[in-house]
């Protein structure tokens, strides 16, 4: 299903110049009115592996996806055991998006995340022990227990934070790109948000602002078809989020969010475009959450059949099969990876459990710089 949208074939901007070449306003306007480009939807349906991806990368992506899955399963259990402080929104089922996208990042790149942010953190290489410690409200957590699951951040890794406000991270990503340009570095900002967030005003204002300033942002919508109890089509006009890219004259693409390599490929292309000064893109990665909305809100109104259907498209086991079929890996190696992952998670859990509960005094620190 092709999405049509119009955007100008832009000439790269010269850095430190505010992102606009002389007279470009008028020129862009003309372009917009004259040209149309067809952006095809890459919807692999998960049937083939992409070209020129190294064996190491593939095994590493498999490992990261397993790591996210196991991490979330562990949070689920820790919550059953009453150890989680507050809520947590599990990423199970959506692992291919975070891993595929973050694998396209440079070390200097930045990202903003959402309430459902564990996957982005792990894919970006945050420490699973410190993440778990945060979720358990311990001193060794990334936020010393003050932020919890919804506010994990690691600024040193360019992870600017999960966010408890739906749509709250989108303008922050745009600002980060503005700041990066001001500093003269060429980092790209990866902005993750759910399809529900695409109905917030902040989505619109941010995409428009990023587009007119031609900022280096890759907008990655994780469309898991539901926003709490709201089915996508009932609350979202226009048929797809990617389709909305046309409103901002930026490329929009719909991607199979359960296909790690398809996501990687699409994000890599959008990143290349952003880094070379051609501006933002909007990717819609379709996937599904297997669990309830959160460990707090488990009431399920989604049709059981739909959930089962999506579990058939498990991004991890599907990738596993594919790797073996394509002789890209043996099941021995994958098993080794799996047990290695299991080990890491149990170590993380030990670390988190043994980390002390914060002293109440710390509640009164760090309000101001």
């Amino acid at each position, binding site marked *: 299903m092709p999405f049509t949208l119009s955007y100008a074939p832009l000439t790269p901007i010269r850095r430190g110049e505010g992102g606009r070449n002389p007279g470009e306003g008028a020129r862009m306007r003309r372009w917009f009115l004259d040209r149309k480009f067809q952006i095809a939807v890459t919807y692999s349906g998960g049937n083939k592996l992409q070209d020129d991806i190294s064996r190491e990368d593939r095994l590493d992506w498999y490992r990261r996806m397993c790591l996210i899955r196991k991490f979330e399963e562990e949070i689920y259990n820790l919550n059953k055991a009453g150890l989680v*402080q507050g809520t947590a929104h599990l990423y199970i089922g959506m692992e291919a998006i975070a891993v595929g996208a973050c694998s396209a990042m440079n070390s200097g790149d930045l990202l903003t995340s959402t309430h459902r942010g564990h996957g982005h953190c792990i894919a970006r290489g945050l420490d699973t022990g410190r993440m778990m410690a945060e979720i358990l409200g311990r001193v060794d957590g990334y936020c010393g227990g003050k932020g*919890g699951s919804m*506010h994990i951040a690691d600024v040193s890794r360019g992870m600017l934070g999960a966010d408890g*406000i739906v749509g709250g991270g989108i303008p922050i990503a745009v600002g980060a790109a503005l700041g990066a340009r001001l500093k003269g570095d060429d980092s790209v900002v990866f902005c993750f948000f759910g399809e529900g967030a695409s109905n917030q005003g902040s989505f619109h204002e941010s995409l428009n602002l990023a587009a007119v300033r031609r900022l280096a942002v890759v907008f990655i919508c994780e469309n898991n078809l539901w926003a709490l109890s709201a089915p996508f089509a009932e609350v979202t006009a226009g048929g797809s989020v990617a389709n909305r890219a046309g409103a901002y004259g930026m490329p929009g693409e719909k991607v199979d969010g359960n296909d790690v390599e398809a996501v990687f490929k699409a994000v890599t292309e959008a990143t290349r475009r952003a880094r070379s000064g051609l501006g933002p893109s909007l990717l819609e990665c379709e996937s599904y959450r297997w669990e309830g909305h959160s460990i707090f809100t488990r009431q399920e109104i989604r049709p059981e059949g739909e959930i089962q259907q999506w579990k058939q498209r498990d991004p991890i086991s599907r990738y596993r099969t594919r790797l073996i079929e394509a002789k890209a890996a043996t099941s021995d190696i994958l098993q080794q990876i799996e047990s290695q992952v299991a080990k890491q998670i149990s170590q993380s859990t030990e670390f988190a459990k043994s980390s002390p509960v914060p002293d*109440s005094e710390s*509640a009164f620190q760090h309000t101001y710089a």
Partner: protein
Amino acid sequence: MRQISYAEALNEALKEEMRRNSLVFVLGEDVGRMGGLFKVTHALLEEFGPGRVIDTPISEAAIAGAGVGSALVGARPVIEFQFSDFMTIAMDQIVNHAAKLRYMTNGMASVPMVIRAPVCSGINLGAQHSQSLESWFVHIPGLKVVMPSTPADAKGLLKSAIRDNNPVLFFEHRLLYAQKGEVPDEDLLVALGVADVKRAGTDLTVVATGRTVLLALAAADKLAGEGIEVEVVDPRTLKPLDTDLIFQSVRKTNRLVVVSDGWSACGYASEIMATVMEQCFFDLDAPIQRVCTKDVPMPVAAPLQKAVMVSEEDIVRVCRQVLAA
């Protein structure tokens, strides 16, 4: 008398008012199919249908604006925000439009709209899901602000708020939803702007709102054991404020402590202190003191959250101070 929960009482109020007036409708995220994140709109969709129980996109600003527009043409929207913190997204519509349209049009227009939202401190959700911002709205002429502490008040005040022809901000508290209390069966209305003495006393007045009324009552019990008789006054409606009842109480006890789940600076407690200071200065035997959420954002981890939130101990301690002064 029968006992029902605060959430059930609110749900009853909604049902009764929707049956009574077909122009009353509910608008918000997950209010229909799901019955509300905290079940306050439970089963309304089934009874009143998708035309009057509207599941919206995640668009708080437009939800509030749509409420204003529907009210301008005679409908009576009852909007739910899942956390009162999200009102920050809708401030323009609430403050620049809902609150001012009647005045700006010299009384030509009116905006009979209720915005319900829970303060959710105490469930470890952290800084963006725990704020008690009622003082912002008390600051704004054109708005009314309600904050019930019991199931009966919750039901009676919500019904009055829905029948009121002005925009009413209705603050609930997540920790109160499960609290049970006596609620009469028949049609129950509690007038806006009328405070309530939740416990009579002679030695000290405590003005508390919402969740903290329960803490104040517990503190009063404790102090009663030491022979100290605390009078607990619950304004119930924060704007317009029933100053008479508060002044009466202060003139009787000559000592006042104000308790609020909001922050202290420019908060609701400071307003009560200022008002009493203006009118009852010479009746006071000791400086008024306030017990508010500590002046930091709300942390997640239990011991930190506990240290930041208002507690019964805080109230007891400050009451002792004021009695000693």
